[in-house]
């Protein structure tokens, strides 16, 4: 096994562990906000690790670039979705009619 393969294996394992953390958080955390927090962070870290691990296996720079693009877009989507959902839950609970920033 080469060094790249070893690193790649480690990163994939780490990514899987992050996903597991996210799932455990989703199932075990007591409140909606805590679950939102757990998911958006752990899952996207996990996706990043998986993408990096796969980039090490990739044989061309284009593939690595596409993987990076996927991860970047996933971060943007997660940020926007988490923000929208959190805002929606706050409204639903009638809380904090706060002034715009």
């Amino acid at each position, binding site marked *: 096994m080469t060094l790249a393969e070893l690193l790649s294996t480690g990163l994939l394992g780490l990514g*899987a562990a992050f996903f597991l953390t996210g*799932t455990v958080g989703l199932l075990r955390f007591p409140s909606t906000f805590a679950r939102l927090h757990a998911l958006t962070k752990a899952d996207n870290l996990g996706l990043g690790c998986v993408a990096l691990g796969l980039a090490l296996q990739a044989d061309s720079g284009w593939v690595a670039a596409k993987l990076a693009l996927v991860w970047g877009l996933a971060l943007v989507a997660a940020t926007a*979705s988490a923000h*929208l959902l959190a805002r929606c839950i706050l409204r639903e609970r009638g809380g904090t009619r706060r002034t715009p920033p």
Partner: protein
Amino acid sequence: MSHRGYAVETLNLAVAAFLLLNLLAGLGRVHRGPGAADRMLAALLFGTTTVAVLLLLAEAMALPALRDVALLLVLLAAILAVAFTRIPRRPDGAGR
């Protein structure tokens, strides 16, 4: 099949299977709720996990087009959240 070793391919598939298992476990949250937002949240988690599984399958099955599928999914992932926030909620937090 990929020109790389059989071991790497199996590893990728094994990680993909593990992530799929994670996704199915997350279904419990859709089931339990309690609010509509919790169910939606779980669905969003499924999106991220599916993207990771697709990236792994693209490598393991030597089908590079699957990376484009993953790209599409992350690009369009936010639409679901936007659509969800347009549903008005009843005060009792129903919508289950």
